[in-house]
């Protein structure tokens, strides 16, 4: 269908965007790459939004090293993340995830901030930043605030972003020497949303596991992480399947999604070693 918008304003900088958000009477909606928002508007899942276009705010795009962390601006596009040498070196999970996200034309426009703020439970980047123990950087007229990825994703399309706040960047610890980061997913066709997916990070002797498309939000799996720390893959799969909350829909049953999550965790563990899967 055709999109329905209540109005449009282009923000010159973050402060201007925050002022517009404040003036929008609760109807403000941040428009960045638009690859999820415009689709939602087309399907009339969202109507009458006062669009605040932040896509020309150059300061919100780009990748930089900050001490032992990597900071990625909210407007950094998927395609840029996929070819950025700093991301490849310090957060390879994100670079690897890009190939799984939709199609080339969508990766040319979509932004990481948009993907995180949209918080689709089947999307790759939210699960990646959870596995990477990332921090979300939010700004409002009152000031700035940091939220750990663990606390950021709350429910289907729901995050910790409060009224009047904008997600401006995400940052994460730079990968340590020898650290391994792996993403595995199953989708029916290339570029489709995953039926199930797993992100696995091994840093020293500790593991972080997140799962996507198997619950109302990307989910950390602490039981599976503890079992992997102890070297017990079977126990990790069993714990994971108890920790996720998959739903049945036309794409896959809940049981099948749970089964896939276990298979994908085993593949991800094999991927840590570079073994044949």
């Amino acid at each position, binding site marked *: 269908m*055709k999109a329905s918008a209540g109005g449009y304003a282009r923000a010159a900088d973050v402060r201007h965007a925050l002022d517009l958000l404040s003036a929008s009477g609760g109807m403000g909606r941040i*428009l960045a790459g*638009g690859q999820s928002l415009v*689709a939602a508007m*087309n399907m009339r899942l969202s109507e009458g939004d006062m669009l605040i276009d932040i896509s020309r705010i150059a300061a919100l795009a780009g990748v930089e090293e900050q001490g032992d962390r990597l900071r990625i601006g909210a407007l950094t596009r998927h395609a840029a993340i996929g070819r950025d040498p700093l991301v490849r070196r310090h957060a390879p999970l994100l670079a690897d995830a890009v190939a799984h996200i939709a199609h*080339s*034309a969508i990766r040319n*426009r979509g932004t990481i901030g948009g993907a995180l703020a949209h918080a689709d439970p089947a999307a790759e980047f939210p699960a990646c930043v959870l596995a990477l123990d990332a921090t979300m950087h939010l700004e409002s007229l009152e000031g700035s605030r940091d939220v750990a990825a663990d606390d950021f994703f709350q429910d289907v399309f729901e995050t910790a972003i409060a009224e009047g706040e904008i997600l401006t960047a995400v940052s994460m610890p730079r990968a340590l020497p020898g650290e391994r980061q792996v993403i595995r997913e199953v989708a029916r066709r290339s570029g489709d949303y995953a039926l199930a997916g797993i992100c696995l990070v091994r840093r020293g002797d500790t593991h972080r596991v997140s799962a996507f498309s198997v619950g109302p939000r990307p989910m950390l799996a602490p039981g599976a992480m503890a079992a992997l720390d102890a070297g017990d893959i079977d126990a990790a799969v069993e714990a994971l399947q108890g920790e996720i909350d998959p739903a049945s829909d036309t794409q896959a049953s809940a049981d099948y999604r749970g089964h896939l999550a276990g298979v994908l965790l085993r593949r991800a563990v094999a991927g840590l070693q570079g073994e044949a899967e």
Partner: protein
Amino acid sequence: MTDVFRDRIDIALTVNGEPVEARVPAGQHLVDFLRGELGLTGAHASCEHGVCGACTVRVDGQAVRGCLMLAVQADRTEVWTVEGLSDSAAIRDLQDAFVARNALQCGFCTPGMLVSAQELLEADGVPSREEIREHLSGNYCRCTGYEAIVDAVETVARARAGKGAA
């Protein structure tokens, strides 16, 4: 304060090399602007949620979905549609290869296929058939079964590489 939000916005851009100025509704898709206001009906509005690729056009050198970008977001950009790419002969070899390999039947998907394929062909190196399939995975064709499309793109990739080396 909400008067800062506009329901119609002035934009200025170039389309197929020509300057264009217009006033567009806030929610109008780029593809509907191109088709309805400029009469450029090569890009097709089809699924209207970013899945089928029939609306693919180039904005600032990159292939994008014309149904997932608002016309207002194309302000100050350079847009190329299949009409412009045809007139400039930039994709003549690709179009000839599509005809030679029967890479279309009804032709509905073809403008999007050409724009997407051209982006891949402009990248470095000669793509493998697997890479061509992956790149075109966001463009649906309900007639050909894709094999002939992959053939056509592969033929052009090799021909262009041969010319570049000569």
